[in-house]
Every structure is written in structure tokens, then in C-alpha cells.
């Protein structure tokens, strides 16, 4: 493809430069799952759709992208407006994103006193509860963005996906390093990280997060081009490895009497079983990524029957909220104990 700058470039033209902190201009082809297409009038093919659609002429593709950009929801437009704050003007979107993104720093904040005071007792007892659970929360909130774009048609919060992904990486790496230094298994740092299968799963997640963390910025998007999207599909591998990490850690059962997972301190071992929490949240996140489901949603939205989509999604979303409540509950209680450096072991 020839451009005015690089007539013989091997790569497609670079996307417009975006400020660090998330592209203001939505780049649908550069994200692992394009959720925005559900609001287009014409259907978008699923990623693995077989029949080859004849490639439209370049001018039509460009106008389709322009149409998508023009067809912004009213909320997106409202969010883009400024308001007076103090002595300057600030976009409503900026304030909302700061508020919605603030929870991502909570797990690291809660562990900070133990790290700064090198309180190995607190770190060894509660780092997996605080940082591990925190990383899981950040992962789910990161994965939640695309389904919410699918359902609402709004895009103003899309930048949260990268933010939560980055914070998930830092939190998970913190958990992994702390486990490597303080766990009671034998054979040093790597022995502690890889000596047990569930920790090996965690170690693999850490390794896969490193390239995602390094390339989670507009510069890397430009440099990697179409390969950036493929690389960042690794988040799904990490999502799957988390399942194995939890099933090996917790098992598939729950506490009965005084044995099993879930800690029945409040009489709800099933709700506190981490694998069950993961499954409850993942069902919603996975369902809204299935291409046939996205097609159905797009069809109902184009018919103007968005209410039917919400009614159908409601039980799955309720299950997601159920799971999240108990994950957040654990993060708060274990996190406060970690912050006060009085960790409570299960």
C-alpha cells in the first residue's frame, strides 16, 4: 500500500497519533474484539466467518468508518462536552473516567504499607488474597468494557479497558513476585513460583502479561500494526489460565464442616469459593463475546428492540454482579487487614 510518505511501505498506513492515555479516536481493527460494529446498520462478519465477502472499494470502507464515527451515541456526545471545574474547563468524560478507574489502584494501595515496611508476615499471609483477588477484579473490569460497549453503544469509557489491563498486569506481577519471595515452598524464588502446578499457572500468566504490558500503548500499536491485535488476544489465554490457577488452588468443591474451599466463617462457603466466583463472572463476559450472540444483539438493536436485549441479558448480568459482590467483599476485608498489617489467614 503506497502512501505519500512511504511509497513502498510493507505496513498499512499508521493510525492517527493519539495522546497517551487511550486513543480518543476509536480504532476498531486494532482491538481484539470489535464491539462497536453492533450499532452499524449493516451486519459485521464474525472473526471466524467463512464465506468470503467481496472487499468493498476503499472509498466505501473509509465512509463506513466515517459513518461509525459520526453515529455516536448521545451519551458519547454529552460526555465529550466541557464543564467548568475550578478555574478551568474539563471534559465530563475525564472526570467520569477518573472515578471509574480509581478502583484499579486499590489493591496495590492496600498492600503498600506491608511493602514499604517490608512486613514479610503480612505479605506472605495475605498478598494472594489482596493482590491476587485485586488482579482478578481488574481483569474482569477490563473484560467488561467491550460487552458494555456492545450493550449500550456508548464508547466514552473505552479507555478503561487499557487502564484496567495495565493495572491488572502490575497487580498480578506484584502478587507473583511477593509469592516468589515469601511463600513457604522450597527451592528458592523460581521453585516457589513453579514448584506447584497452580503457581506454575500463575507464573505463566505473569510471563504472558509482560508483553501485553510493554505493548499496551499507542506507540506499540503503530509499530506492531495488525500484529498488535493478535498479540493482545493473549488476554484470553490469561483468562483461561486463571481458571486452571483457581481450580488447582481451590478445587471444584466447597467447604463442608471444616474441610474444603470457601471458608464458612459467615455460613456461605459456596459464595466464597473463588472458582465459583470466577465462573459466575466469566459467563457474562464470555457470552457477550460469542459472534452469534453479538449478531443477535445487533439485529435486535437495529430493529429498535434494545429492551429485549436487556431483558434477556439481565439474569446473566445478575449472576455476574453476584460473583463480583463476593470478590469485592473479599478484597475489602482482606485488604483492610493487609493495610493495617494484621493479616487474617483463612
Amino acid at each position: 500500500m503506497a502512501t505519500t510518505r512511504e511509497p513502498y511501505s510493507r505496513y498499512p498506513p499508521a493510525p492517527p497519533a493519539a495522546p497517551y492515555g487511550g486513543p480518543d479516536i476509536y480504532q476498531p481493527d486494532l482491538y481484539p474484539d470489535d464491539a462497536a460494529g453492533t450499532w452499524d446498520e449493516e451486519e459485521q462478519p464474525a472473526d471466524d466467518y467463512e464465506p468470503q465477502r467481496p472487499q468493498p472499494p476503499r472509498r466505501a470502507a473509509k465512509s463506513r468508518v466515517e459513518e461509525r464515527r459520526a453515529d455516536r451515541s448521545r451519551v458519547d456526545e454529552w460526555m465529550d462536552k466541557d464543564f467548568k471545574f475550578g478555574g478551568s474547563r474539563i471534559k465530563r468524560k475525564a472526570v467520569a473516567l477518573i472515578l471509574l478507574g480509581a478502583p484499579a489502584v486499590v489493591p496495590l494501595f492496600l498492600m503498600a504499607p506491608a511493602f514499604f515496611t517490608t512486613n514479610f508476615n503480612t505479605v506472605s499471609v495475605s498478598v494472594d488474597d489482596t493482590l491476587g483477588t485485586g488482579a482478578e477484579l481488574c481483569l474482569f473490569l477490563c473484560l467488561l468494557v467491550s460487552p458494555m460497549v456492545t450493550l449500550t453503544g456508548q464508547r466514552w469509557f473505552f479507555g478503561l479497558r487499557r487502564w484496567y489491563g495495565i493495572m491488572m498486569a502490575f497487580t498480578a506481577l506484584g502478587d507473583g513476585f511477593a509469592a516468589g519471595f515469601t511463600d513457604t515452598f522450597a527451592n528458592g524464588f523460581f521453585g516457589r513460583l513453579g514448584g506447584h502446578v497452580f503457581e506454575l499457572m500463575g507464573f505463566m500468566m505473569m510471563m504472558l502479561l509482560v508483553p501485553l504490558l510493554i505493548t499496551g500503548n499507542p506507540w506499540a500499536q503503530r509499530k506492531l500494526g495488525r500484529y498488535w491485535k493478535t498479540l493482545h488476544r493473549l488476554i484470553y489465554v490469561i483468562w483461561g489460565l486463571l481458571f486452571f490457577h483457581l481450580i488447582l488452588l481451590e478445587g471444584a468443591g466447597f467447604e463442608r464442616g471444616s474441610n474444603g474451599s470457601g471458608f464458612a466463617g459467615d455460613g456461605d462457603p459456596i459464595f466464597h469459593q473463588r472458582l465459583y466466583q470466577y465462573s459466575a463472572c466469566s459467563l457474562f463476559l464470555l457470552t457477550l463475546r460469542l459472534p452469534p450472540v453479538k449478531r443477535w444483539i445487533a439485529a435486535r438493536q437495529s430493529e429498535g428492540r434494545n429492551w429485549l436485549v436487556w431483558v434477556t441479558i439481565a439474569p446473566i448480568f445478575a449472576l455476574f454482579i453476584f460473583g463480583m459482590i463476593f470478590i469485592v467483599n473479599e478484597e475489602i476485608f482482606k485488604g483492610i487487614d493487609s493495610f493495617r498489617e494484621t493479616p487474617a489467614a483463612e
Partner: protein
Amino acid sequence: MSAMYDETYAEDGDVQARIGGFLLMAIAILAGILVIAGLIYAMGTGARHRAAVLAGGCEPSLFISGLPCTTQQMVISQYEGIVNPAIRQLTADTAAYRANEGRHLVAAEAALTAEVATEQALDNSLAAMTFTPQNRARALALNTNASATGNQNVPPAAITFTPQMTVVADALIQANQALANLTAEQARSSSLTELRSFNPRAEAAGAAVQTEMKLLHEAVTAPLTAG
């Protein structure tokens, strides 16, 4: 040709959308069943919690989440630590009174005065163990402080009776207070004859105290229940 492609694509798209709809409905029904099951399970939380606390040997009505629990053995030990010394002292005071009631008014009244002090000290110690808002607040503060310093044992001063034990303890305190008042009045006697005239009433009051003490002992040592 492109119209044929578009038509084929549109039909395949409709099929995909229908499949998506069925899939979504099935998953939504499954999720709905799980949510309802979860809510039903949540309704039994209280009973499961009490059973879990009992399984740990803790007194359910004294359990505070996040803090070391008060076991029945702790309550028994604390109760016996209050009552046994008081009983021994009262036995000694009663023996001293019996030895002097026939011949030595001052010594008999001194024994009775000591008995009153023992009975009032017993009342105060039992009252400090009853399940009242003030006592529970003090217990919570003491337990929290101990837990914050890494002490996983419940401080003795933070151990209280359960609400059921408190009912019996209050009856014992009242009976003991009535006995203490009678004993104090007896100690103000001006003659040995007047002193001895209180004996039948004092014995009746003492029997009432012993009955209540026996009931409290049974309440404290009764097997733990979830209710």
C-alpha cells in the same frame, strides 16, 4: 454476482443471529436458575453460620466476626473463677458466724459484715459478666485491642455470659442482693437474741441463692446450641 454474495451472506447472518438468540436464551435461563438458587441458599446463611460457629466450639451469641471467639470453656472458667472463691469465702464467713452467734456479738457481727462484703463482690463480678450493651461494648474494645497486638486469646475481662445465661445470672444477683441486705440488717443487731432471730430468714434467703447458683451452673455448662 455481488448481489448473490450479499444474499447468501444475509441468510447466513440470519441463521447466525438465530443461533445467537437461542444460545443467549439458554444461558440466560441457566443464569436465572443459578441466581434463584443462590438467593435461596443465601436465606440459610444465618443457620449455617451458627452451625459453623458451633463446630468451632464458639458460643454463637457471643461470636464477633473477625475476632477470636469466646468458647464455652472460657465462659465456664471465668464463671468458676468468680464463684468458687466467693463460695469458699462465704463458707468460712458462715463458719465464723456459727462459732460466735451464741456467745460473742461483736465477732458474730464482724463475720456477718465480711459475708456482706463477699456477697456484694460476687454480685459485682457476676454483673460485669452479664450480656448488657455496656459489657458487650467493653468486651469488643478489649478483644479488638488484643487482636490488633497479635494476641489470639480472648482477654478474661472480655468474656461475658450469653443472653440465656444472663437471665439466670440476673436472678442469682437479685437473690444474692436480698441475702446481702438481710445479712447487713442482721449485722446491725444490738443483742445475740436479736441476731439469732434473723437465722430462719437468712437460711431461707441462702437456700434461694443456692438454688439460683445451681441453675446458673447448669446454664453455663449446658451443651452449646445454635439457638
